[in-house]
Structures are given as structure tokens and as C-alpha cells.
């Protein structure tokens, strides 16, 4: 009798212990989810705050006006055109270079100290603070190569900044292509470059594209390096148009033009004491967030699609 009672008592104790531990599990999973959601909540608060603060400026004039000393009539025209042109240079410098480097490291590079050196460099560059790229550009592009505080300088700087992102994603997506694809192409007499260009690059283009989009979104929002090269903040003119109506229809004068970009315009308005300019800054911030979130969202969705659809 007594033993049975103690067993029962023990059982109750054990059950209580199990209940307690299960409760701990449950509590922790709530805490964990909350910890992760703090980021999301911040993002939401931030966005709502920007939209509320910037609401008075949500009209077309804001996009078609030049900056002005009067906050209410100041606009973003020179900033978004500048951002667009800088991104153009960034795209044409970082993408060919990054994809080529990724292809080399993944498909061509022999396993030796030289390839290791390049690899370590890429990893390290990804960890260099963005403002250091600004100092590099200030010393090298602005004064070393005499490119001045131009769109070309800014585009190349951001190109170098996103190069590691493009290289790493290119390598990752190439690595996902099975060897059998390459062997099949070799078997019908393709050269190495034909294998790479017609097959490997072709099949990994979706993955590479996600990397490019993420990189470009990063470049769009990056402020510090562009401030460091000495970008002007009050630009009341547009760079010369890249397309003209006389032959040869394309010109490159705009590359040497002064410029401002969206995040710099925002920074400038934000660092003024006058609260009216903070409204402009909020509206600009909302615009930047929407564009970068759309770009990043597209990239993430694209990656999800690729992962889901391709079964080798």
C-alpha cells in the first residue's frame, strides 16, 4: 500500500515537472518569436512614422521640383535623376566584373594559394565598412584619377562596394548546377567557355539576378561613401541627358556632371534644424524604403521561385 502511494505521489511529481517544462518550452517559443518580431515591428513603426510625417509632401510636385530654400516647394527631381544615373554606372561596372570574377573562381580557378588569396580578399571586402570605400574613392577616383565629384566616381564607388555581393551570389548559384550538365555539354564537343556561357551561366542566371537586385538595392540606399567623396547636396540642375536627338544619339557628358542622390538629399534635409525640412526628409525616406523593399522583395521572391521550380 505504502509503496503504491509513494509511486503515485512520484507520478504526480513527475507529471508536474513535465507540465512545468512544457510550459517553459511554450514560453520560450513565444519569447523567441517576439525577439525576432522586434525587427519587423521596428520596420513597421518606422514606415508608418515616415508616411505620417511625410504625408504633406506626397504629390507629384515633390518629384518634379528642384531642391529649394523653402521646404514646401523643394523637390526631389535632381536627386532621383542622380540616383538613376549613378545606378546605371554601378550596374555596368559591378555586374560584368562581379559575374566574371564569380565564374572564374568557381569554374576556372585552380586550387592553389593564388585562388585562396582572391577568395580571402572577397570575404574581407564584404566586411569592410562602406565609409572606407568612400575614402578609397576620395583618394583614388577623385584626386588620384582626377574624375572629380562626378556621377562616374559615385557609380564606380558603389560598383566596388557591391562587387563582393555579386561575386558571392554568382558563385553560389553556379555551384548549384550539377556536374552532369557540364559533362553532357563537354561530351558533344563544347569548349570550356561554351559550357560556361551556354549552359552554366544560362541556368544560373536567375540566382545571379537575385544577387544583382540585392546589390543594386544596397547601392541605392548607401549614403556614407557618397558623402565621403564630397557629393554636393544642393543641386538645382539636371546632368546632361544621356540620349540626344542628333547623331550619335548617346553622349557621355553626364558622367562628369555633379549630382546628388536620394539618400544624400534626405540626409541633407534631416541635418537641418528647421522642422519643415524634416517633413521632406520623411517623404524621401518613405520613397527610398518602398523602392528598396520592392527590389529586395523581388529578389527574395525570385529566389523562392527558383528553388521551388528547378529540380535537377
Amino acid at each position, binding site marked *: 500500500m505504502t509503496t503504491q502511494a509513494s509511486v503515485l505521489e512520484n507520478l504526480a511529481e513527475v507529471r508536474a515537472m513535465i507540465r512545468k517544462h512544457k510550459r517553459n518550452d511554450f514560453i520560450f517559443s513565444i519569447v523567441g518569436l517576439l525577439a525576432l518580431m522586434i525587427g519587423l515591428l521596428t520596420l513597421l513603426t*518606422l514606415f508608418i*512614422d515616415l508616411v505620417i510625417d511625410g504625408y504633406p509632401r506626397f504629390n507629384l510636385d515633390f518629384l518634379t521640383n528642384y531642391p529649394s530654400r523653402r521646404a514646401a516647394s523643394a523637390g526631389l527631381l535632381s536627386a532621383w535623376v542622380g540616383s538613376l544615373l549613378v545606378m546605371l554606372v554601378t550596374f555596368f561596372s559591378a555586374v560584368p566584373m562581379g559575374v566574371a570574377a564569380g565564374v572564374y573562381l568557381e569554374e576556372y580557378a585552380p586550387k592553389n594559394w593564388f585562388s585562396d588569396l*582572391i577568395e580571402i580578399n572577397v570575404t574581407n571586402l564584404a566586411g569592410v565598412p*562602406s*565609409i572606407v570605400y568612400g575614402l578609397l574613392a576620395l583618394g583614388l577616383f577623385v584626386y588620384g584619377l582626377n574624375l572629380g565629384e562626378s556621377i562616374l566616381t559615385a557609380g564606380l564607388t558603389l560598383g566596388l562596394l557591391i562587387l563582393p555581393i555579386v561575386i558571392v551570389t554568382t558563385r553560389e548559384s553556379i555551384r548549384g548546377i550539377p556536374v552532369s550538365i557540364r559533362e553532357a555539354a563537354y561530351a558533344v564537343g563544347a569548349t570550356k567557355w561554351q559550357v560556361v556561357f551556354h549552359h552554366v551561366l544560362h541556368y544560373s542566371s536567375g540566382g545571379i539576378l537575385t544577387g544583382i537586385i540585392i546589390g543594386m538595392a544596397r547601392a*541605392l540606399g548607401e549614403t556614407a561613401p557618397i558623402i*565621403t567623396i564630397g557629393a554636393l547636396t544642393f543641386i538645382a540642375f539636371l546632368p546632361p541627358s544621356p540620349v540626344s536627338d542628333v547623331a550619335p544619339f548617346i553622349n557621355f557628358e553626364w558622367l562628369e556632371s555633379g549630382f546628388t542622390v536620394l539618400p544624400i538629399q534626405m540626409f541633407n534635409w534631416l541635418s537641418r534644424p528647421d522642422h519643415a525640412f524634416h517633413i521632406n526628409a520623411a517623404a524621401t525616406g518613405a520613397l527610398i*524604403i518602398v523602392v528598396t523593399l520592392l527590389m529586395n522583395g523581388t529578389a527574395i521572391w525570385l529566389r523562392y521561385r527558383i528553388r521551388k521550380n528547378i529540380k535537377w
Partner: protein
Amino acid sequence: MVSQVLQKPAELPISARLAKNVRRHILERVIEFILMLAALSAVATTISIVVILLYESYTFFEHVSLFDFLTDTEWTPLFENAHYGILPLVSGTLTTSAIALAVAIPLGTIGAIYLSEFASHRTREIVKPILELLVGVPTVVFGYFALLFVTPLLQKIFPELPGFNMLGPGIVMGIMIIPYISSMAEDAMRAVPMSMREGSYAMGATRFQTAIRVVTPAAISGIIAAYILGISRAVGETMVVALAAGQQPNLTFNPMESAATITAYIVQVAMGDLPHGSIGYQSIFAAGLVLMLMTLTFNIIGHLTRKRFREVY
């Protein structure tokens, strides 16, 4: 093989196909060479960064002794009575980074444990992209948030808090780093073999006990590496502190005060109109060199920790 064919007597005509082969062969080499040049651009960038920082800092240190640079407690390169002590900038950088880590380490670790040990596959598929989106938000926008949202909010709790302070931007920076730390720590935890968890479950441990007493210790090197790389991120972060922490170098570790960080100083000088070659211009490269050395040290320690002390199962 191609060259053997070419060396045959001249009366044997080289077929068009073989000639094409030779061309192809040369072209292949050229392409490989071009691709290699592209890959070398990474090395070239690193070398340029080092050369430019060292070169401009060298001229800086011809005017300023290294001893003053490291021991002077004032940083006023743009004033009449110029002092060149890096300590106030370093203290600002370390204080804001410490606040950021005090926010990011607990939340990031808890988040990582949750993602790796508790979350279902579906939850993870939803949460991880959201975290990635958060990483993509431009820092200047977070600067707005720190200056015009978080600081006013904190002033309601601490009425004596000045408009520029290190607490607000530190907290915002911490929130920015959470996804970074949690995703890296999660990677480390998921690398712990399933058999270890199963062993723990078989002994009657709950998920929480397994996560805390088995998985976390097994993945500790990766988790610490995530922290260290997080420090490096916080130290190099620019816009949030440049906007919200103030621009006055101030040798203090009090988060309630305003102080400039290394990055904020560089931005401040770059916004002004300093002539090329002046001591003020060179001082941003010296500051940049210090910043680079700090982040590089953290990055190297982080990578080594991950590599060296990883337990191999």
C-alpha cells in the same frame, strides 16, 4: 595535339576544322585571362584601400606624432588650437557599439535558438525573408528613426536626455544588427548534428533544455563568431550615428551624452569643404585607418573563432 598536327609537312593541307580548333583554343585562353583579371579586381581593391589609407595617413603622421594621436584626450583638428587625439572618437565608437550589442546579442541569440530549435519549417520560411528585408533597409532611414522617433521617445523616460545622444542611435543600431547575428548564429546551431539532439531527447530533455544545454554549447564557437562580426558591423556603421549621436568629439562612455564616432567625424569633414592635402583632409584618412584596423581585427578574430574552435563531429 594541335601543335603536332601543325608540324606536319606543308603539302598536307590543314583542314578548316583544325584551323578553327586552333582559333578556339586561343580564344579560350584569352577568355580565361579576362575572367582572371576580373577576379583580381578584388585583390586590387584591397590593395588600393590599404595603399591610400597608409599613404594619406603617412603624411598625417609627419605632422602629428603617433604618441599624441594615441594619448591626447582631445580631437580638434579643425580648430585654431588643434589637438589630434583619437581617443574621444574611439570612445564614442565603442560606446555606441556596446549599446548596440547589448540590444542585439540577447535578442539575436534568442531569435537564433527559436529559429533553429523551435520554429516549424513553415514559420522559418516566413520569418527568414522578413529578416532579410530588414537587412535591406538603408541606414540613413534608420538614422531618421533614431533622431526623430527613438530619441524623443527616450526623452519621455529620461527627461534630461539631450537631442543628440549615444543611447538612441545605439539601440537602433542594435535592432539593425539583430537579423545579422541571428541568421549567423542559427547557421551555427543548425550545423550541430541531429544525433546530439536525439540523444538529449532520449534522456527525456525538453526542447528548451536541449537547446540551452546541448545545442548552444556545441555551436558556441559559431555563435561567438556571429557576435564578433556583429561588433565589426556596429563599429563601421555610419549614418545612424552621424545623424543622431552628435558631431562633437567627447571622451566619455556615458550613453546619455552626445559624442562623435570615427565614422561620424569622417562624414562631418567630408560635408565641409576642406582643401585637398590639408591636415584636416588627411585626418579623415588617419581616422579611416583606425576604423579599418578595428573592423579588420574583429573580422579576423571572428573568422578564426569560427574556424579554429569549431568542434568537429
